[in-house]
Structures are given as structure tokens and as C-alpha cells.
């Protein structure tokens, strides 16, 4: 008898697999990447409020211990992230501290390329790390509607090279898909690109044509990020049992806060928190939260010391969030030491961001991590085993 993966999983369920693994086979899992564009200030997001060096480095920008939302006796969240606290309490929020990479690049463009392609600092790769996971076996396991959906104005990012589409508005997208004809083929690379996008649009539209049986009752925040969250929930809700879309890319920003950072940053974090809470509500309603993993990332954190314009310059390591029904909440890794900065006065990372991707590759998708990220990277314990 040929054992299908589904059978294996149902057998495993009896053996006591965690809820999220029972809930869905690998191919039904949803990864939502949230890019904080422009370089988010990790130190004022996950705040080492008890460290005297923090207040010393940031005479005007340091958040006072009495306003941060403590996660333990050392670190706490920016007050604008208050909507996330219930998730923290439920153990659905993991804080990944000190993520970075060796020889960090301080250019927005190069650094986000490094994060998206999961390359080393001096290595240039064309495809995003998600595309490599697809090629490493994920693609063969499912007939995905489309391998990724990027919502909003940011580029494909980590989805580059996968069969992914960028979508502004879902309804308009489906209606207008009549304008393309799926033809595979070549010609110049530019023409090949157009033909490939046409083919991706055809496939994606086929899968998105069916709206959810009942519209979601969740209310989504106004604004571009809230609407991207809404579209994500709508797509996931509409695709039950169809193979679906495994990866979403959302973006928020700009976090490039060189001047007068405090107000701008608080506003952006508030949007982030409200969007993520709405994402949770929408996906709970769609019955998909247990099989969802949300991950924030950004090209870099910011300089430890604030600048003369009450802002922060381009930095290096930063903390990020993993959330979802499959997440094992808590503080993961260690906060970089504020008294041991590098030659550019920047934080020294304590975990490599590729450890996060390695964890997702192995534990979330079950594909060999070394095909997704070159080199060996130890997993981080932010998924429930």
C-alpha cells in the first residue's frame, strides 16, 4: 500500500503530534512575511529597558521603563505594540532577538537583497529564499494555486524567482485576468518575463475566482497595510481545500527614521500591531490560524546611539517577531550587548537570520535547509515541536 503524506500525518496524530501539525499537511501551511521597509529600529521595538547603556545611548529617544510593556525583567515592547500583548500572554508570539549576519551591509537595497535571497554579505543570488524552498521539494508536493502573493506596492522580495504574483486588489485582479493568455515561451529575457507573468496571472486567477462562502466578519484597519491584511485573509478563507497559496508578502513602512523618529516610529508600530491582530482574527475566522506562521523582517536595525536629529542612522542587528498558532511563544536568543558595539558603533548580532529560514525550511516545510540556505545554520526554537 502506498502511504500518502496525509495518511502518515493522520497516523502521526495518534502518536501525539502538536495541534498545528495535526491541523494541516505541510502544503496547507501559510507563511506570511511582513517586511518592515526602511530598517526598523529594533532597540525601540523590543526595548532593553533595564540596561543603563540604553538610556545613555539615547538621551531623547530612550523609552522609560514605566511605559514599556515588560516581557521579562530586562526587555519590553514599545507601548504602541500593546495590541500584541494578548498574543504574548497566550504564547503565540515569539521574539527573535539580535538577528543579523556577519559583515553587515548598511545600504537599504543591498541589505534587503541579502535578507530576501538569504545570501552571505558578499554573495549575490538572484532568487529569493522562498523560491529555493519551492525548488527544494515543496513545489513537487502540491499543486499550489500560485506559489506566493505579494500584496501592495513592494516588490516580490523573498518570492523572487517563484511562481508568484503581485496583487493590488483581489477582485479587480480576477476580473482583469481575461486580458492575458497563457503562453509559455521565450524570446528575449524581457519577453520571457512578460509571458511568465501572464501564465502566473492565469493560474492565480483560476484559484482566486471563488470568493469565501461567507464574507469575513473581522474588521480590518484602514490604510494600505490593513487592506493588505484583509486581502490575505480573504484569499486564505477562499481557498479552503484547494492547495492554496503557501506564502504571502506584506510590507509596511518606511521605517527609515533619520530625523525626529519618536512619533513616526510609534505610528508605524501601532499600524503593525493593529494589522497583525486583525490578521490573527481574520485567519482564526477562516480556520487557518493554527497552520499559519507570521514573520517580520527588515533590512537592518538602526544605530544604537541616536543622532543629533533625534533620529537613528542605518544599523545592523534587530529583533523580530514570529507569531501564529504554531509558534512557541517567548524570548528566543539573546539581546546584543549595548556596551560591545562593532567598529561602526553598531550592534553585533547574536543569531543569524538564516537560522530562522533554516528552521522554517526544516520544521515548517520539511525541505532540506541546505538547499534553501547555503551553509549550516542551527534552528531556533520558535515553533512548537
Amino acid at each position, binding site marked *: 500500500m502506498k502511504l500518502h503524506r496525509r495518511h502518515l500525518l493522520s497516523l502521526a496524530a495518534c502518536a501525539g503530534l502538536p495541534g498545528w501539525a495535526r491541523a494541516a499537511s505541510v502544503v496547507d501551511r501559510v507563511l506570511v512575511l511582513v517586511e518592515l521597509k526602511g530598517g526598523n529600529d529594533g532597540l525601540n521595538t523590543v526595548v532593553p529597558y533595564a540596561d543603563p547603556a540604553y538610556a545613555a545611548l539615547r538621551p531623547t529617544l530612550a523609552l522609560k521603563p514605566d511605559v514599556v510593556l515588560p516581557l521579562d525583567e530586562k526587555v519590553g515592547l514599545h507601548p504602541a505594540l500593546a495590541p500584541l500583548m494578548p498574543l504574548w500572554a497566550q504564547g503565540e508570539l515569539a521574539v527573535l532577538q539580535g538577528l543579523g549576519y556577519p559583515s553587515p551591509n548598511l545600504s537599504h537595497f543591498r541589505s534587503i537583497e541579502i535578507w530576501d535571497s538569504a545570501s552571505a554579505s558578499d554573495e549575490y543570488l538572484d532568487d529569493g529564499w522562498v523560491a529555493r524552498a519551492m525548488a527544494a521539494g515543496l513545489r513537487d508536493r502540491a499543486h499550489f494555486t500560485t506559489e506566493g502573493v505579494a500584496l501592495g506596492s513592494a516588490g516580490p522580495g523573498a518570492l523572487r524567482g517563484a511562481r508568484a504574483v503581485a496583487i493590488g486588489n483581489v477582485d479587480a485582479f480576477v476580473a482583469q485576468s481575461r486580458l492575458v493568455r497563457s503562453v509559455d515561451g521565450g524570446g528575449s529575457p524581457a*519577453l520571457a*518575463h512578460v509571458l511568465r507573468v501572464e501564465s502566473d496571472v492565469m493560474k492565480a486567477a483560476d484559484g482566486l475566482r471563488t470568493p469565501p462562502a461567507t464574507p469575513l466578519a473581522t474588521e480590518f484597519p484602514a490604510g494600505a497595510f490593513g487592506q493588505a491584511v484583509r486581502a490575505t485573509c480573504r484569499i486564505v478563507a477562499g481557498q479552503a481545500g484547494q492547495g492554496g497559496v503557501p506564502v504571502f508578502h506584506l510590507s509596511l513602512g518606511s521605517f527609515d527614521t533619520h530625523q525626529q523618529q519618536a512619533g513616526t516610529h510609534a505610528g508605524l508600530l501601532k499600524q503593525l500591531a493593529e494589522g497583525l491582530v486583525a490578521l490573527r482574527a481574520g485567519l482564526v475566522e477562516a480556520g487557518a490560524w493554527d497552520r499559519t506562521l507570521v514573520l517580520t523582517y527588515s533590512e537592518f536595525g538602526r544605530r544604537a546611539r541616536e543622532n*543629533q536629529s533625534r533620529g537613528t542612522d542605518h544599523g545592523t542587528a534587530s529583533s523580530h517577531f514570529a507569531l501564529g498558532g504554531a509558534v512557541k511563544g517567548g524570548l528566543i536568543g539573546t539581546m546584543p550587548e549595548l556596551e560591545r558595539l562593532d567598529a561602526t558603533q553598531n550592534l553585533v548580532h547574536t543569531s543569524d537570520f538564516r537560522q530562522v529560514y533554516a528552521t522554517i525550511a526544516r520544521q515548517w516545510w520539511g525541505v532540506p535547509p541546505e538547499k534553501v540556505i547555503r551553509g549550516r545554520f542551527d534552528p531556533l526554537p520558535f515553533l512548537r515541536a
Partner: protein
Amino acid sequence: MISVRFLVGWWLAMLLGVAGAQVPERLSEADVRHLLGRTGFAPSPAEVAPWVGMTPAAAVDRLLAQAEVATPRHPAPAFTAEPVHVPYGQLPDEAARRQARVRDRADTRALSTWWLVEMRESPTPLTERMTLFWHNHFATSEQKVRQPQGMYVQHLLFRRYALGSFRDLLQAVARDPAMLVWLDGGSNRAKAPNENFAREVMELFALGEGHYTEADVREAARAFSGWGVRRTDWQATFQPRQFDTGPKTLFGVTARYDMGSALDHILAQPASARFIVDKLWREFVSPTPDLRVAGRAAAELRANGWRTSAALRVLLLSDPFWAPATRGVLVKSPVELAVGTLRQFDLALDDFGPVEALTGRLGQDLFQPPNVKGWTGYTAWIDGATLLERKRFTERVFLALENGAGMMADGARRGRLGPARVAFDAGGWLRPLGAWPDREPDAATASRLQAAVLPVPPVNPVPAGTVGLPYLRAMTLDPAYQLK
């Protein structure tokens, strides 16, 4: 029916043809379309005619000479002559700031619309393309500058130096108030250096990654200190007390650099001329610069006082530019798609608001590039969302004409594109190509139509029985229409 296999074979054959001399002796219609399409926007058949039969050198020299002396045809929007707006920070309350934001958005839209009209009507479209090239190269966004007049002042700079000295342009841009605001040059003081401008000068404006060190960035930032913006009249100012007078070591040479000498020293680096030439190459020729030709163009650039026209002349008269394999290998930017469609079909539009909105939806809001790197361009212009929006634009234009007030006695077609009225002299456009608004083209006519509209053969054959305007509409929906 043209198959995909045919297309691939055609393209490979063209690739193999690159080897020999490719510059034509005299320009054919197809050659003129290629030259005008690359140096301007997609040309109409009437625009093509006068250039046919010229030598490439004569045509390129005429293009460059005309573009260098061109001036705008229409006065800039009225707000550009008014006193500059009070900065947001000095406004009394949130209501006043909100009002200012609304006004600035409207002014920026007016400025973009004015520029799009210039692009549509200009007899020297190369001027507009080079101005757009510099806007993208020194990408500065109104979203941070918050002074539409400041964006206009910067625009005039790009226009003035469009084909002139890159060195003078770089020196001027470094002192341009909009740039000083955009990259925080105005808050770069001796005691508190801000590296933003110094970093981007090296990474994006003059050298490219790998040709400088973090130490060079830090030292250059010191040389750029002391500059500020006087908001009352939008003037760049230099405050000696904020300037770091100490010696700086830049690319291994220690001197008391200031802004002028630091920029000159950056341009003296071997990588600088090639950096600009490679960018011109990707804009006007192909995605992959040819080492030999680009090296020659870089030498010409330096030998001619950094005049961009000298480098561009080398590229436009090179074998790779004229090789058949180079046709249709670039992607039209949103502005090129919109303006090119209007110019190619000689469409008259009485309101450019819908065009301004379209280019924004397609990812190219003029005066608001996404970041200092500018628009990525090439294949990044086209994803699932923008491809559909691009096709919907040409479909709407032709459906409006087809379903509009019907054919006029003079063969003209009229319709509406949102608030705008659009008109097309269908008979006048089709007749010189041997086609008629109410007749299906025969094979020879069809190939003339295709050559006039598409840079490479269509991917999808136009269905049998398609006549006149629907035939043109079908061609604009072909994937090849997105290319140039």
C-alpha cells in the same frame, strides 16, 4: 500563426547575428522606429517619415543637438512662481498641516501632469527622457521634501544639464535644496556628521558598490558638512561654523576637502565614468553593457568634460545598439507606455489627469520615486498587478474610441477616458500603412501594422476577422507591446 518556437528561433538567430557590423548605412523605417523609440517615446508613422534614409551619424547628431537646446512648450504650473510654502513644522496646528499636505499633493500632481504633457508634445523627446533619467538617477521624492516648488527647482536642474556636463550636474545636485533635505545634507554638521548623502553619492550617484569603503563614506560626510537650506526662499546656504575644516582621507589621499573638491575627487576615481555609462546603457541599449563599447564611451565622457551627450553618442552609434537582437529587449516604463501610446497613435487628449493617475498605479509617480535608488525598472516594472493595469489602459483607450460617438465624417474617432476626451484620426493613421478602419488587413498590410506598433513580432496572432480599431487594440494587448 506565429508560434512560440518561431519567436525563440528568431531571437536566437538575432543573437547570433550580433557579431558583424550592425550599424546600418542608411536608416530604414524599422531603424528609425528603434532609434526614436529608444531615445524618446514610441513614434507615430508621421514622426518616423522624415528620418528615413538618413545616415545614423547624421540622425544621432541631429537628435542630440536638438535636444540640447530644447525648452518646454508650456509654462509650468502657476504655483511654481509663488513664494515657497511655509514648512510644516512652522504651521500653527494639525488642521493647517493637513491643509498644506492636501495643497502639496495637488501641486505635485499639477507638476507631474505638466511634465507628461511636455513629453507628449515635445518635438525633442530625448530632452524629456534624459530629464527623467536624471530624476531617476538622483531620485528625490516630494514625500520627504514637502515642497513642490523645490521639486520644480530640481527638475529645472535636470533639464538644464540633461545632456550637458555630468560633473556640473553632480556639483549642482549636491547643493540643490531638495537633495539637501532628501538626504539630510541640511543636518550634516561638523560635530554631528550625517552620512546619508555621502553614502548615496558613492553607492548610487557616482561610483557604485564595491568602489569605496565605509571609511571613505565617513570622511566624505565630513567634507559635505556645513550645508543647510534656508526655507524662506529655498536657497542652499553654507555655514562655515558647521563645517569640518580638518584634513580628511578620501580614497587614500589626505586633504582639506570641501564639497566641491570631494566630489571632484570622487569623480576622479576610475570607476566613476563607467558607472554612468553602464546606467545609460541599461536605459537606452540593453540590460547588459558591452565591455568594449562602454569602455570607449567612458573614455569619451572624460575626454569631453563629462558631457553626457558624448557618451550617449558612442552608445547610439555602436553595433550592439543596432543589432537586431537588441530590438524589443527592454521594458517600457509606465511613463513610456502611457506617453508612447499617445504619441504612437497620435491620440489627442484634453486632460492628462487620467494619464498621471495611470502612471502612479503602474508604479511611476513622477516626483515620488520609491526611494533613493529610484525605480528599479526593466522586468521589475511588470508583475501580475501592473501587467493587467497596463493592458487595461490600452484596452480602455481603444474601446472608448470604438464605442464613442461613432466615426466622424473625417474618419476621426472620439471617446472618453474618465474625465478626458480622447480623439484619434483612424483613417489618417491607417491609410499611409495601406489599412482602413473598416477592412481586415491582408497579410502584407498586417505585417506593416505590426511593424508600426510592435518592436518584435506579436506572440499571439490577431484572430481572423478582426478589423480596423479592434485590430490595433489586439496588438496593444500582445505581450510584445510592453517592450521597446
